[in-house]
Every structure is written in C-alpha cells, then in structure tokens.
C-alpha cells in the first residue's frame, strides 16, 4: 500500500512548484478524528484482505505445485484410454487366443444434428453396413441419444471423425478379439457384447478373467490344434462327412493339447454360423463309441484275471440273446485268443469276456475310469454319459463292445490315458499344469495290465484293423471303433460314427490322439468302407507324424530288437502263422 501520490494526476498542479493540498481545508474536531480513525481501520481491513489473498496464493502453490498437497490420493481424471478389464487368454506357448481391444461405440445426439439427411448419407458412406433409411430415422428423431453402431474399429472411428459432423459422439467400449478365429472356437468360446462370457473358457472362467490382469494360460498348443483341425477337415472332405471331432491329451498330466469339433464357428462373430456349429462334440456330445470300448473290456478282464494274454474265447458262432444277435464284422468263425479278439475287433469275444467279468465288476471298473458320470472339466459344455437304466447281462455284453452306453470323447481320452500310462487316471484339463507341481492321479488298474494293453494296441496298428494309423518311427498304438448312430428306436446301418483312438509312442506313452468322423461316406479309395480304420486312422497317422517333432518326440526304429521285444505278443497256433504270412 504505497502512500505516494501518483505524480501527474493532479491537473491543477502548475509545472513549477509543488502546491499545498488543494482539496478541502483539513477538517477540525470530531470530523477529523473520525476520518483518521477510518483510515487506520481501513489499513487493518486492507491487511486482512491482503492476508486472505496471500493464503489463497500459497494454497494454490501447495495444491498445484506439489501434488501431494492435501494428503489425498491423486486421482487421474479419466482421459480417453481405459484399461482393459478382461484378461487375455493364451496357449501354452503364450500365443494369443483372446484379447480385449478398445472398440468405441458410435452414438448421436439428434438435437445437435444440423442436417440429418446429409449426415445419414455421409455416415453410410463410411459405414456401408448401416442402412441409410434407418440412420436418417434415428437422426431425425427428437431424442437426445441414439446408438448408431456398437464397437467400431479405430479405422472406422477415424473415418467418422473425418466427416466432421457435429452430434456424432463415441462411447469408450471394449471388444473381445479372437485372433485365431475358428481354430479355438470350442475351447475359448466367446464373450457377448457386454463382455460377459457366453461359451467355452470365456464362460467357464468368466469371473477369473474379469478379476485378473495377467493372461490365462491354457494347456492347448496352437500348432498342434492347427494340425489336428487340418487333418480332421481333410478326412471330412474326403468322406463327405457331416462332422468330426478330435482330442489330443498328454497321458501323463491330463493336459489337453488340442480339442477340435467341426463344423465350428468364428468366435468374433458367432451369430454368423448356424446354431448347431456351437455344439462341442468332444465334451457335450456323447456317442456309442463302438469297438474303442474293447480297450476297457480287455483291460478289465486282464486286470480281474478272468482271462490272460494266452486265454481266449470261441467266436465261431454269433451269440443269440433275447431277440438280439451279436456277430462279428471281421468274422474269423473260430476260437480266438485274447490278442486276436482285440486285433480283429471281435464283438463275440468281447461280449463273452465282459460276461465272464460280470455286470457288477464291469460297472465298478468303468466307474473307476470315470466313464459313468460327467467329468469335471473347465468348459461349461459338459455332458453326462447315457447309461442303461437296468444293467442286465445283455447290457454287460453290448457295453463290452461299446454299444448301449454313450460317453463323450473327453471321457475316452482320460480313460484310455489311464489304461496305457501305467494305470494312473488323470483328470483332463485345459489349463497349463505348473511344471513344479505334478498333477495328481488315482491308480485305477495295475501297471502290468497297462503294459499288456500297450502291446495289444500296438498289435491293432501293426496287424489288425488300425494299420492305416501307422506313423513310421512313432510307434502308434490304438483301436478302431465304428458305431451305428442311434436313429429313432434302432440303429441306422448307413450313418456311422467312425473313430480311431490312438496313443504314441506306445512303448512309453506320451500322447493320446483320437479322431471321430460323423456320418462318413465310403468312396472308391476306401472300397466303399467308412469304418474307423479307413476313415479316422489315416487322420491320426498324419497328425502324429506332423506333431511329434513339435512336442519333442524323436522317431525310433520300430524294428530294433529292444522295441520288438518290449511289444511282442505271442499269437497261438495256426492263426499266428496265418497272420505272419499276411
């Protein structure tokens, strides 16, 4: 508060001398006293106000200059980019299977539209999938908010912005993107427009994915999945099939490396495919899988010691029971040893073997293998097996060769894995197992039985119905299965499900590979056959050859003495000689 009088503001001041005050003569008495007092108190008031301004200035410096000013947590005012709220999904090697991208949604405030007709025309110019009529109707309405298009790409957003039309606005939204498209449709599933999981892992792990930042690692392998899908597609095309499915599982951990169900869909746009394509044949489909079931029947009989590798059954005549007749597809019409029954896939032999074990023990054994109840799995699309309501001897016999019971390929995978890996049943899983934490397993049959079954499975590929599954150097073992599909009240002999369930390398099992082809049609190359050995086995063969090096399996010489000895099966009598000459 300067007391100096600004110099040149006194117009009545002559240039040469400083005059006395030219205001009124100083007052005297009470008036003068009150004026002085008012001046003093004016200074006090001014000081107080000045202090208040200083405090405000200091506070400004404190708040804006030193961000921690108030001891309050600094909150960023949201600007543009929001953080993704759903975790990525990756395969076992980190390849991206699902991720979240910013996908701004376009809306408009019709009240701000200067020229709705022109705006609609220009907008449809850059977003051709919109209908100009509909857009115009929306823009010309008297609302103040209308959605125009949800989840645009950044390129589309830029194009709309470039139109420069006031009234078009964007809402930040997120979109789930599946870079692998159809390949993992049934594994990963998809999330809806509100980012809520609708199928597959997206649905089964919805809460988990919402609640985490780091990606969810699956057990699947992008490369192996691609191979399996490719081979199934080839087989389906060749045999003009309605569908197909396949699963590859690590038999020593239960990790599922590949899971394919065809026809499939693009999870980026699931609505574009027929609803039936969403059906997961591996986990939600249950099938009378046919002769593949003989693996379990034989393992059961050997494990229960009702017969042995050298035992056998008379398969010279079909079995008549009630109003059914059980006969063989590859009939030998003689007594068959257990390895022969397995190799020729004899229904008569398997039925007799099952009957020998008995219905109760059969149920108990299949239950132990997890075939009688819905498996626990990461996907929500899980089916319970279809079982006979009353377990009569006829059921025991038909189940012995895989009829009268419907299970999912997923259940077969775990069960066959246990049969060949030394008898340990692992729970099938889509999640990558931590390295330092071995998966837990339950012992369901003896290691000895397991070794015997390996030999039998190898025999099928070497000499029996599954020769076309052979993949040189990788010692494939396996079992064919051809089942007539249930249609109405009976079986339809023309529509088949043809499968091959394989394991490799069979002398030290690592992976289970199964392919099923739904309703194949035999062609000239297969001499009209549409059985598992003709339709599914070649797919397994090529899949094994292509994937083996990717999963670190070296080819071996099948004819080396150690391997021959480890897989040797003695076939008795003349049949053996006959086979040797084959």
């Amino acid at each position, binding site marked *: *508060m*300067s*007391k100096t*009088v600004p110099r040149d*503001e*006194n*117009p*009545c001041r002559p240039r040469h001398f400083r005059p006395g005050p*030219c*205001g*009124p003569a*100083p*007052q005297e008495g*009470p*008036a003068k006293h*009150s*004026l002085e*007092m*008012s*001046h003093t*108190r*004016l*200074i006090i*008031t*001014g000081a107080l*106000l*000045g202090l*208040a*301004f200083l*405090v*405000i*200035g200091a*506070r*400004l*410096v404190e*708040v*804006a*200059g030193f*961000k921690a*000013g*108030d001891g*309050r947590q*600094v*909150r960023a*005012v*949201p*600007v543009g980019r929001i953080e993704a709220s759903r975790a990525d999904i990756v395969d076992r090697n980190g390849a991206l299977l699902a991720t979240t991208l910013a996908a701004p949604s376009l809306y408009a405030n019709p*009240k*701000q539209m200067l020229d709705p007709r022109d705006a609609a025309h220009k907008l449809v110019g850059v977003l051709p999938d919109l209908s100009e009529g509909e857009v115009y109707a929306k823009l010309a309405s008297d609302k*103040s908010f209308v959605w125009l298009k949800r989840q645009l790409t950044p390129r589309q957003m830029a194009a709309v912005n470039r139109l420069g039309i006031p009234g078009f606005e964007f809402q930040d939204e997120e979109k789930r993107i599946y870079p692998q498209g159809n390949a993992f449709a049934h594994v990963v599933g998809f999330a809806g427009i509100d980012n809520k999981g609708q199928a597959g892992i997206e649905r089964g792990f919805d809460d988990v994915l919402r609640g985490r930042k780091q990606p969810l690692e699956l057990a699947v392998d992008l490369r192996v999945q691609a191979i399996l899908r490719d081979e199934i597609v080839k087989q389906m095309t060749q045999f003009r099939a309605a569908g197909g499915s396949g699963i590859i599982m690590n038999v020593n951990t239960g990790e599922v490396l590949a899971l394919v169900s065809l026809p499939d869909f693009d999870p980026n746009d699931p609505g574009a495919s027929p609803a039936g394509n969403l059906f997961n044949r591996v986990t939600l489909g249950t099938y009378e899988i046919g002769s593949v079931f003989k693996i379990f029947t034989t393992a059961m009989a050997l494990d229960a010691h009702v017969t042995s590798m050298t035992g056998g059954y008379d398969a010279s005549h079909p079995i008549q029971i009630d109003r059914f007749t059980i006969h063989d597809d590859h009939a030998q019409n003689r007594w068959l040893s257990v390895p022969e029954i397995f190799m020729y896939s004899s229904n008569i032999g398997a039925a007799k073997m099952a009957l020998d074990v008995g219905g109760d023990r059969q149920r108990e054994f299949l239950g132990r293998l997890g075939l009688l109840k819905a498996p626990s799995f990461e996907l929500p699309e899980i089916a319970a097996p279809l079982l006979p309501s009353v377990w009569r001897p006829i059921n025991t016999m038909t189940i012995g060769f895989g009829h009268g019971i419907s299970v999912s390929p997923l259940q077969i995978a775990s069960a066959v894995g246990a049969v060949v890996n030394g008898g340990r049943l692992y729970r099938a899983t889509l999640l990558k197992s931590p390295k330092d934490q071995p998966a837990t397993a339950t012992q369901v049959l003896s290691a000895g039985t397991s070794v015997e079954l390996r030999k039998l499975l190898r025999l099928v590929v070497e000499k029996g119905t599954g020769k076309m599954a052979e993949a040189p150097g990788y010692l494939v073992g396996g079992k064919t299965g051809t089942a007539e599909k249930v249609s109405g009240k009976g079986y339809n002999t023309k529509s088949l499900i043809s499968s091959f369930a394989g394991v490799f390398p069979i002398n030290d099992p690592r992976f289970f590979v199964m392919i099923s082809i739904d309703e194949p049609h035999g062609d000239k190359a297969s001499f009209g056959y549409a059985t598992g050995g003709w339709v599914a086995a070649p797919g397994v063969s090529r899949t094994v050859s292509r994937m083996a090096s990717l999963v670190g399996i070296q080819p071996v010489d099948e004819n080396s003495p150690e391997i021959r000895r480890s897989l040797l099966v003695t076939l008795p009598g003349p049949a053996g000689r006959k086979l040797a000459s084959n």
Partner: protein
Amino acid sequence: MTFARTDRSLTAQWWWTVDRWSILAILALVCFGSLLVMAASPAVAERIGTDGLHFVRRYFAVLPVALALMFSISLLSPRAVRLLALAGFSLALVALAYTLIGGVEIKGARRWIDLPGLSLQPSEFVKPCFAVVTAWLFAQNRVRPEFPGKWIAIILYGIVVGLLIRQPDLGMTAVVSAVWFTQFFLAGLSLIWVVLLLIAAVGGLAGAYLLLPHVASRIDRFIDPASGDSYQVDRSMDAFMNGGLWGKGPGEGTVKLFLPDAHADFVFAVAGEELGLIVCLIIVALFAFVVLRGFSRLLQEHNLFVVLAATGLFVQFGLQAIVNMASSLHLMPTKGMTLPFISYGGSSMLALGLGMGMALALTRRRFGDADA
C-alpha cells in the same frame, strides 16, 4: 488515447482523474473471464441439454452492457453516485421483496424475477447500492451527530438481511453482513461493539449450522470429507493438480465435464486445470491489486462518505473473490458465489459493473469537496 491536460471536457477530466491501473486490472480479469467461459461453459451447456454456446452468447451479450455501465457510472460525481445508489437501493429492495411473492423457485430458493428476455436476481443489485447507502448514513451521522444515521443503517440492515434469509440466500447474507460490519467498523464503531458483533456473527453461523441441515452437511463435509459426498471439491482439487504449473491449455481440461457449475462457482478450478498455477496466481494478484490499490487511494481521501462507500464496494468485490477461490481450493466449505468478472452470471455481471463503476467514480481524484 491522449487528452490534453487542459481539455476540460467530461471524458478528458475522467481520463486524468480516474484510476486507470484498476481499470486495466479489471479489463484483464474480463479477458480471463471471456477465455474461461468459452472453455468451460460448452461442456456444462451440453450436459443440461441446451445449445453448446448458450452461456458464451449470453456472457458476451451481458459483458458490453456491464462494461458500459461501469464506465458511464465512473463518470459520476460522489453526490450523483449517492443518489443513484439510493434510487437503485429502493428499487432493488422492492424487487427483493417481490421475489418472495412472485419469484421463480430454482433449487429450493426464490431469488429470481423473470422479466421478458432475462431473469434478474435483485439481491445482486441490493449489495452495492446498500453499501453506498449505508456509507452515507454512517458518514452523515459522524458529520452531523444529530442525524440518526447509525440507527437508520441498523434498521435497513435488518430489513435487507431479513429478506435475504427468507429467500433463502445465506451466501449473500454473509457478504452483505461482512460489508456492513466493515463499514460500521471504519465509521468508528467502539471496540466493545466490534467484539460483540463478531460474537454475534459466530453465533449466527452456529445457528445456521444447527437449524439448517444443508449448511450443516456442507460444513461437516468440509471438516471431514469422508462424512459425505465431497465429489465437487475433490474434482476441483484434481483439476488444480492436473493443471500443474502451466496448465493443459485452454479447452483441454476435463474437470468441466464433471462439475455441474464449472462455468460459475467452480470456474477457478477450470482456470487451474487449463491455464495452470502461474495464471491462477496472476488472477489472485489482479483481485488483490484492485482491492488494495483502491484502499491506498482512499487513504488520501478526506471525505468520510467516500471512504466508507468505496471501502464497502471494494470489500464486497474482494470478499466475493476470496470466498469463491477458497471454496475451490478446499480452504472453506463450498459456497455458491461468483468469481467477479470471471464467472458466468448475468445479474452478477451487471451488478459488478454497477458496483465497480461506483467504486471508480468514488476513487477519482477530486479537488475541492464537491459533496460536503
């Protein structure tokens, strides 16, 4: 602009006698106000669903009127100022009383009178006029002790405050009371009374806290932010932090998207975010400059009426700025009050033109007591 010192025309006389530095400061504030109303108000306008430039247009429609009002009133002599204030006070008081009957109710208070084309808030005009009238009453009482100016001032104060509380408009009541008290203080109120009135002020505040729930909730939230919704002031603080030293640039801020009164009560927060700390300090300095420079000129003044009246007007101007800025900075409970010449607000702007016009008229250099 040049005028010969010998020029005796009205404008030339005005030019040489008026406080040109204060005018410059006020014009600087107006510039910042124009910038901020353009930056902040479109977001608010869009949110309430009107045309984006609604407030900008109204601001620039009112601004020239307010400035013209200020300049023309600053030409008046103290005597004319007094007569103007008396007339204005009578009119505004009647209008203020009318709000209780025919006023428009907005957010639970009747403060507005709807006229064709505009709505006016009479209390804004009561404020400066009442300050000048009070000053004259106190001054007369000093010069001619037989004149019961003091008592008339007290009665008028009672009427004005009574009407304001009925509206209710507690912020305005507080400002009018503070100004009136300062004038009384300057007019030579004995210290005993100073203490008693300060106690009464504290009592009034406590009464408001106990009797009026919305006052209680605001004060509670100020003392303990966790006790209730402190959304507005939190956003305001974020804005200052976001802005930092140099700000994000005019129009680049985001706080205006969240604060309902970004163009009025929280315009200072928008300034903090978009123009930054340095400009905010300049704005504070401009307000302080106008007030303190006015005061310093009054120290040369020999006319008690002029001292009291101008002090009242400057205190009112400064106090309003202080309350607004302190609210934005969480230094006091939030109180809706405009930031002079910067906030949007038609009545407030016109009343400021009136008030500062009178203050400039009173602080002009005068020679010979034109108004004894």
